[in-house]
């Protein structure tokens, strides 16, 4: 049972122009991942791109690992070029995971952020109020799966091509302001672009809600060794009990943090 293993690609399916679903079959016994954890995937056997890239576990089932990814730069382009039966090296599962939700919960996904949240929806079926925002209807990937796993789903797109036009955080705010549900017991789980998380953080501050978000940083090692991937986190000083910030590693202490701990710049 190793966290460094070879895996065979058995699927690398385009979902739209930029999103792909990668299916891997590990060639040795692996650890079982929890929702929120991630893997470092090798994108090429050449020296360019050199470093592995981090991707959240999207699905683990019957000995296969699935990842949902968006083509952004060199690494993901290379990954997209890999074909059936190619073999890549993988490290994982890495990092912490989303804490277990108490009863129902709110999930907020921005774009590819759905990749990280879907395993949570899947483990706690029909418990989530899902808020899912994307650029356009085409980029609302895995919508049917998400709907079938959630209690309720609210959708926004930047261009209004599906759901409401606008920001998903605005819809969430309205939802919380509506007296339809008592939300105080609901924890929020989020993954998406930084501005979305930041906005969420201020909403939660306002409403006194607890929110766990998955963060991203450039990573080199993924295992806590290089200190490349840090984030400013408020911590109690154990000696004099004062508050101070320290840099914690997204790959090790994260990627999931309680947003109240994050020091926003």
């Amino acid at each position: 049972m190793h966290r460094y293993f070879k895996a065979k690609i058995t699927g690398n399916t385009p979902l739209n122009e930029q999103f792909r679903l990668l299916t891997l079959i590990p060639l040795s016994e692996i650890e079982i991942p929890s929702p929120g954890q991630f893997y470092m995937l090798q994108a090429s056997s050449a020296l360019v791109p050199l470093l592995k890239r981090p991707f959240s576990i999207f699905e683990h089932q019957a000995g296969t690992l699935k990842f949902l990814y968006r083509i952004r730069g060199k690494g993901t382009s290379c990954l997209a070029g890999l074909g059936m039966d190619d073999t890549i090296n993988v490290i994982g599962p890495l990092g912490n995971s989303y804490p277990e939700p108490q009863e129902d919960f709110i999930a907020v996904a921005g774009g590819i952020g759905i990749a990280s949240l879907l395993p949570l929806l899947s483990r706690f079926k029909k418990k989530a109020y899902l808020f899912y925002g994307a650029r356009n209807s085409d980029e609302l990937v895995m919508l049917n799966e998400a709907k079938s796993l959630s209690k309720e789903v609210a959708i926004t797109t930047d261009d209004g091509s599906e759901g409401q036009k606008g920001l998903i955080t605005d819809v969430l705010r309205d939802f919380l302001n509506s007296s339809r549900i008592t939300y105080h017991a609901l924890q929020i789980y989020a993954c998406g672009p930084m501005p979305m998380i930041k906005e969420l953080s201020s909403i939660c501050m306002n409403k006194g809600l607890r929110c766990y978000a998955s963060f991203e940083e450039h990573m080199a090692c993924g295992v806590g060794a290089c200190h490349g991937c840090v984030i400013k986190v408020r911590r109690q000083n154990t000696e004099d009990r004062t508050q101070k910030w320290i840099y914690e590693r997204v790959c090790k202490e994260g990627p999931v943090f309680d947003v109240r701990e994050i020091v926003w710049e």
Partner: protein
Amino acid sequence: MGIKRTEDKIQKTPNLSVNIAGLKLKNPVMTASGTFGYGEEYSEFVDLNKLGAIVVKGLSLIPKDGNPTPRVVETPAGMLNAIGLQNVGIKAFIKGKLPFLRQFQTPVIANFFGDSIDEYVRAAGELSSADGIHALEMNISCPNKQAGWIVFGTDPKIMEQVIAAVRRTTALPLIVKLSPNVTDIGFMSKVAENSGADAISLINTITGMVVNIKERKPVLANITGGLSGPAIRPVAVRMVWEVYKSVRIPIIGMGGIMTANDALEFLIAGARAVAVGTANFVNPTATIEIIQGIERFLAEDGLSDINEIIGSLITGDLNHDMP
């Protein structure tokens, strides 16, 4: 040094152990500072007992927060880092990290730095009195706050002072890690040797920068960072060879080593040991594969001892032709 080849097929495995300033390593492969954490991070991937030595992340007297992010960015066949030497501080290291490392039979080399001669000396002192540290590696690629932030390792005079001061402080083997950002690495290595270094390690990273052209900003928050990885290997091998011609103390070579063949380039050019850095990120078991690969190479070449290939580079007479 000629290359001896044993006539008959080799029965026993070749000797891999080397001696660095009195420190006996079971093989010449160690980890490069800052790329292997405090050992623990990779201990599930690598049997730490199999390594030649473990060099830990750079330590300072006072814990350091490090730089804002982004701290790393990939470059062609390499990466830039500007971690800013974030570390828990020597006290916390000795209390919290060293006990774990003491479980292993592998020598622990403490890499350290300071921003003044005084801080270097006190850091060396604290580390020297700890149980389970077998050698010190001095990172001199840091700016000197008392001398206009000139990097210690780029000014021969300041370098001499800081090495000599540390030398007086510690009885442990003292490895001085050179900065490659200098005009004459051979000369700098000579200065280190004369100032009391027991061994030289090189190269540290080469300063570089990547620009985000859309935002017109450096990608790294620190603007510049240190280039490591295969991209710099030819520069590192050249510098090891120049240092080998300049000093008599042992050399630990590093810079872009990914495979056993890469490591062998350094050994042949004159390094008595090598350190593996960026490769750990790419392949967490790189160190072990490199050790095995070196052993295989020796066996296939009919050599019985790693020391036979160290510094075995055959060169004709140097000419002064234009490059």
